[in-house]
């Protein structure tokens, strides 16, 4: 029998019909043969799908520059290996003795200036918490945070789009990372000179 598989579902329908008719011992062998033949055809079809797609992309010059992409991947992989190597202290959390200008800085910034709200002299590293209190508890009382990403996005996207469907919207929650510690050099970091890897 010759089957013209012009549509995959047609092929499956034929398979089903063949199997349903004459379902007895004698036909078991030919059923197995039939199934594997159809499976083969379906598999071929899927393979040619991919091959055809690739062929078109390659022939029309649409493929991405894979060499560059692979080079980037390789460099990143290499970098991770180097950084993970315990013999290197070239880790981003290592403490530096001086910066590139030859300066050194204390864990808490000690520049002194006047608060522009109350006029008092404040140390830089403590300015933010001071300002928070200084600007009044009214700020906190007014806070009614709606932690929905859509609300934030809409606010900043300068107006709503005109459409029936919902536009570009993130999944339900914002991705926000707050920082608690001041994380200034020195706090959690190892002591000692930073060494170049």
């Amino acid at each position, binding site marked *: 029998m010759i089957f013209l598989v012009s549509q995959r579902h047609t092929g499956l329908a034929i398979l089903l019909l063949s199997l349903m008719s004459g379902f007895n011992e004698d036909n078991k062998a030919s059923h197995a043969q039939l199934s594997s033949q159809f499976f083969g055809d379906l598999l071929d079809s899927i393979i040619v799908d991919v091959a055809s797609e690739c062929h078109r992309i390659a022939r029309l010059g649409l493929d991405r520059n894979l060499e560059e992409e692979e080079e980037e991947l390789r460099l*990143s992989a290499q970098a991770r290996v180097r950084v993970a190597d315990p013999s290197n202290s070239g880790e981003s959390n290592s403490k530096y003795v001086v910066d590139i200008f030859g300066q050194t800085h204390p864990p808490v910034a000690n520049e002194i200036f006047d608060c522009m709200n109350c006029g008092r002299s404040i140390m830089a590293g403590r300015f933010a918490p001071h300002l928070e209190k200084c600007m009044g508890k009214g700020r906190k009382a007014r806070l*009614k945070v709606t932690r929905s990403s859509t609300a934030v996005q809409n606010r*900043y996207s300068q107006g709503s789009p005109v*459409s*029936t469907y919902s*536009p570009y919207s993130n999944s339900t929650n914002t991705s926000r990372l*707050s920082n608690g510690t001041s994380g*200034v050099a020195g706090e959690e970091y190892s002591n000692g000179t930073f060494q170049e890897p």
Partner: protein
Amino acid sequence: MTTGNPSYTNPKPCKHLADYKLNHGLSGYKSLQKHLKTAPHGKTSVGKPNTKTPRCISCDGFQDIERAELYCCVCCDQVYDPDFDKAVISKHIMGITGDKNGDESIGKRLVKRRRLSSGVVEELVDSKISKQLISMRDRRAKSCYPLGLRGLNNLGNTCFMNSVLQALLHAPPFRNYFLSGGHNHETCRKRSVGRLCLPCDIDVVFSAAFSGDRAPYSPAQFLYSWWQHSANQASYEQKDAHEFFISVLDGIHEKEVKSTQSRNQNRDNGDCQCIAHGVFSGLLRSDVTCMTCGFTSTTFDPCVDISLDLDTNNFPSKNTATKSIKPDANSSMSTLLGCLDLFTRQEKLGSDSKLYCQNCHERRDSAKQMSIKRLPLVLCLHIKRFEHSPVTKMSRKIDRYLQFPLSLDMTPYLSSSVVRNRFGNRIFAFETGESDISAEFEIFAVVTHAGTLESGHYVNFLRLRNQWYKCDDAWINEVDEGMVRASQCYMMFYVQKSLYQKANEDWSCLPISPRRNMFGQ
């Protein structure tokens, strides 16, 4: 070789196909067109093999009926012809809109001409004047370090602010605008009246950073102004770098938008001429396709950045098929390109969220696909490292490593590429009026986060003249590229390659003259 515009290498039709067309014209295609079967998801096949289609005697070329592709028996290869692809796509259009001509682009077409947004920046940038300003200020520059490189004091958990400020200070078009007097805090009218003006405060920060003074600067005034501005918004308490970034751009827009334009003018959102939007604003395209009839509804939304989900399930990238088959140790690693592929993947919306189809006049299963209609000058990519579980109501940070390239080609994510791909990469002008902006970008700043959701630390890595600097609040240190690559990125700032190269040339360091050394530096 990648090009800025998604163009095809128009292949020469095989000789046999060319001969066939000479003899039979397009009548073969036209009769074939009647038997083309289009599917809502964009694929094409042939219904009944039509024996009446004129066949070439010598080549006996025929079609791959499952995929509606042409195959030449003599060349023994699949061949491509723009006219055939046009017939295929026209069939799609006819099927959806009932338009007998079917010669327009798929979906809604934005016809309005868009002014080059870089034009906004170009007129305000006069590099000669900027250079003079710099050289006048640069009396205490420390040897040959890049201008504008200066630490920022942490004022108490303000590293979220410092890390973004560093990126803004070194975003070429943004920096050029302020350095050439785009918004002069000394002459700004709003400021003199005593009103809050965020661009003025940013201008002050620019002046400080580029003054030549290398002692760390305390952006206290800026913090004060920003807090006042953001007190008007519910999110002021967030200490997230990304939220801060959005908030600052919003603050600039408020003050910079020309008085002739109303602040909330929807129509011109994509064309807002303020420096914030001029530099960072791009346009996203969203296509929602009915899975029953194929009708697609397209909307465009401006955006100042793109927030990406991590490709943790490692969906195969769009062009996986083109990759050589080799065991790749990195295949389980998340990559930025993988995230972008995920972002532009066609996503089937669940059956519980059927959308109304204008063609079918009822709610249908739909699929949504995002793409980039217009790229900005500076592209900010934000990684959503925050995961919220609706079950446990707990939030956590995803520490998973994300690989990112230093050179980024955004071509595959443009609307033209994405829409074309949806229709099987047929040779057809799907999108027009795009890309007067190149799609090649270079990274110049990376904001990284270390630690947990509640307690963590932001650090910025800057790339100036191909040297990487780690900006950890007050501390500026030189680092190698490897450290940046291995870091946990949270926000990445890419600038168009041409602007990056220009920035590297222009701002060469000024050598110390003997006279300058007298000032003790």
